[in-house]
């Protein structure tokens, strides 16, 4: 049964990056929660971010907007941060492809590889 739209955004600070584990349905309502979580991290001065997308069932253009703006902010820092993706499902890949974003985000099969890339 549905209650309110729910997503899970789990954040873990690692040595060289911050790892977010995302799950659920990211539409224009819940994308806002993602935006807030990422913005807080940027405000705290962390610009190396990994998003583990394995649990993301659904993602609309509203979520892409958040990924794009966050990635831009990361990259424009002096030390050159980045937002990288891990464990992208075929569904999420389809949405990235549609937006022509597939080549613009570094994407890794597993969380470990993505974290290890920083």
């Amino acid at each position: 049964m549905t209650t309110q739209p729910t997503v899970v955004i789990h954040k873990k600070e690692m040595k060289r990056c911050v790892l977010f584990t995302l799950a659920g349905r990211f539409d224009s309502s819940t994308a806002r929660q993602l935006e807030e979580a990422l913005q807080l991290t940027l405000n705290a001065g962390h610009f190396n971010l990994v998003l583990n997308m394995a649990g993301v069932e659904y993602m609309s253009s509203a979520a892409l907007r958040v990924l794009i703006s966050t990635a831009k902010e990361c990259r424009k820092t002096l030390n050159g941060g980045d937002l990288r993706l891990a464990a992208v499902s075929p569904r999420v890949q389809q949405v990235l492809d549609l937006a022509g974003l597939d080549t613009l985000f570094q994407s890794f099969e597993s969380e470990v590889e993505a974290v290890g890339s920083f």
Partner: protein
Amino acid sequence: MSTDSSPAASAVHELILPAEAAWLATVADFLCSCCAGWQIDEDAQFEIQLAVDEAATNVITHAYAGQPGRIHLRCWVADGDFHIELIDQGRTFDPETVPPPDLTGPLDTRREGGLGMHFMRQMMDEIDFVFSPTGNRLHMIKRGVAS
């Protein structure tokens, strides 16, 4: 207009909800039940959901622009095609003037947004806006997905 009186057409399922983003998950549930009843496969369901979600988001964000309002959804199947109408009483716009998004430039030149209409066009076979005094009506068709 709706073809639900043709012999090959299904019943029309309707949902009327506040134009607020918190209701998008309910729209998704509703679509999911409708699609399952019409044996629409999961790939097509996902594509329909994406198009409708973008369309509903635009109604909330642009047509009503944060003002209170309602979204009326009607969907049905006719001759194997999935049809959906979204009806609102918000402001009108000219879809022809919406520029196609940049899908190839580097990240720093990409706009944040401007992808919704592109997604709708890619996911559906036909998209038709009708603006009239009784409301704005968006009719989208996905062909050959229902049994």
